[in-house]
């Protein structure tokens, strides 16, 4: 991500998620840690891994906190992933990977802020799943 794009991303996040995000650089790898809170008051932490050619390519999103999520039935979500019904991709080193933008809907104007909103919607859908047992596809589409 070039400096100009970084500045834009930072400004949007600062306006909408003040104090709830942190860019991290490890070698050449850039990631964004974000704290998210659902309407039920539960707290999650996601890591958005930003590819070197971002925004041309789609970032991947991992759920770093809590360590594990369970389904309505009590299964570990990471164990049944990738899952179409639960909108998860293959875990990365055991860490749950969330679905967000479809490749066909991704374009370079999509910002990390919008990815974060997508993940917040995912989390709200997940918490509804925990009470209703309905798959996430009923909330987020197929």
């Amino acid at each position, binding site marked *: 991500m070039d400096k100009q794009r970084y500045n834009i991303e930072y400004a949007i996040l600062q306006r909408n998620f003040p104090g709830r995000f942190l860019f991290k650089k490890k070698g050449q790898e850039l990631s964004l840690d974000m704290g998210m809170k*659902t309407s039920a008051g539960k707290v999650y932490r996601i890591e958005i891994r930003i590819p070197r050619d971002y925004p041309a390519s789609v970032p991947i999103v991992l759920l770093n906190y809590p360590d594990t999520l369970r389904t309505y039935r009590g299964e570990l979500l990471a164990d049944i992933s990738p899952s179409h019904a639960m909108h998860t991709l293959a875990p990365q080193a055991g860490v749950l990977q969330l679905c967000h933008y479809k490749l066909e*809907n991704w374009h370079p104007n999509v910002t990390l802020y919008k990815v974060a909103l997508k993940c917040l*919607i995912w989390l709200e859908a997940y918490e509804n799943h925990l*009470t209703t047992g309905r798959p996430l596809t009923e909330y987020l589409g197929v």
Partner: protein
Amino acid sequence: MSENDTNKIGKELVVRNKGEVTMNRLEFDPETGELVVRRNDLPMNPDATTVDQIATDGFAAL
């Protein structure tokens, strides 16, 4: 901030997923950092972002 709010958001997501009409909109409130359901006839908080489009433009699928 309650389970009731979670249910409201869930119902709105299901309605949108079915393509049905709703009297409400989904907003992200940057003051609280949370999603909220608001009636369409209520004025929008100028700092809020409507997430209806983001919610309905699909999630990656396998």
